[in-house]
């Protein structure tokens, strides 16, 4: 893009009060309105380039924020799978217990912070566990049916994730009605 081309300007319409809000936001950031608007438009294009819709971006940012508060860490998936397999050989019960407690801790936070904790848990799983190819939640007044599917999860990792989900749902005030866990698939039915 040549500099002259990039500098060509265009008039754009917006509602008057929205422009007033944007002007105020620019002032708070100590930026001129034109600089602030330029940056805003650039970032909107960046979000689009990353492949997020507006809803996905908002949801993902909320989840990331929660993860920072709860003590989340990025870890290499291969190493996590290796550690899971090794530790599972001798410490299965302890590990299941640790993951269940971690799920309960997550659930408590989600319950306090999100209006719809079940949907928030779904967003949590979708945004952070990209080893899951599918996270499905069907919900009515008293029942939640939850299904996670992955083509790469090991048996051990599936069982641990299942405990995590169960812990989280128990903190959101649901009881396990039915559960089925097999390599790469978790199916739950919870009742209030």
């Amino acid at each position, binding site marked *: *893009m040549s500099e002259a081309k990039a500098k060509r300007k265009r008039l754009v319409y917006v509602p008057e009060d929205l422009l007033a809000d944007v002007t105020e936001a620019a002032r708070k950031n100590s930026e001129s309105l034109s600089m602030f608007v330029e940056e805003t438009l650039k970032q909107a294009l960046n979000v689009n380039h990353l492949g997020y819709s507006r809803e996905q971006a908002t949801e*993902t*940012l909320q989840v990331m924020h929660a993860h920072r508060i709860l003590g989340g860490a990025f870890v290499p998936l291969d190493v996590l799978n290796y550690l899971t397999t090794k530790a599972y050989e001798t410490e299965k019960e302890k590990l299941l217990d640790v993951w269940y407690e971690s799920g309960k801790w997550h659930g408590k936070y989600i319950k306090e912070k999100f209006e719809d904790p079940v949907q928030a848990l779904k967003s949590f799983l979708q945004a952070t566990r990209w080893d899951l190819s599918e996270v499905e939640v069907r919900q009515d007044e008293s029942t939640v049916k939850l299904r996670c599917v992955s083509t790469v999860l090991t048996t051990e990792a599936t069982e641990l994730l299942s405990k995590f989900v169960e812990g989280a749902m128990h903190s959101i005030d649901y009881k396990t009605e039915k559960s089925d866990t097999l390599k790469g698939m978790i199916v739950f039915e919870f009742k209030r």
Partner: protein
Amino acid sequence: MSEKRKTFVARQDLTKRISEMAKRRGYSLYDMVNEVFELTVKAEDSGVNLRNAVEELGVLKTAKEAGFILCMESLWYDMTELAYKKAKSKTLKSWFNAGVWLAKRYVTSENADPFEAFKKDLEAFTWNTPEFNIEKTEKQVSVRIISSRFPESYTLLYEAFLKGVLETFGYKTVDKEVERGGIRLKARKEAEADERG
């Protein structure tokens, strides 16, 4: 929101791209700009800076592509401890290999400065580490990582991971100080390290 309209001036190249984005979503430019502005104002009101937020989304995408996953830090340490106790040398090897794999991803990329790209990404991934510093000069790399939360097993495994990374980038560790919660490494380009050694 009132429908009384006002105009603002924006760069034509940006509005053109926003307009294309709007078209793909079945919106008008007016609707798209409204949505972007409303979201920005909402984010600013909640204390979220848009640029930081977008960077955060970028980190998540890069982490995903680099084979990382988000996990609870405490769970991660527990698992590390258990595996390390059970099979020390194999676990060290798996961490070393993870470092080699990750570094290879950058070395074989078309990035102009693969080491800098690796460093930038790792810094972003290690948001849970209070002190994380990797310095590279022409011939030497210095690493300083400190966290009071690291158990001993994790510290040793992290060192193995970094060793895998450095070796893949062609560096050999010439000096190190590793103790629970702290890793300090100095590494030189392999040929040079061998000459001195």
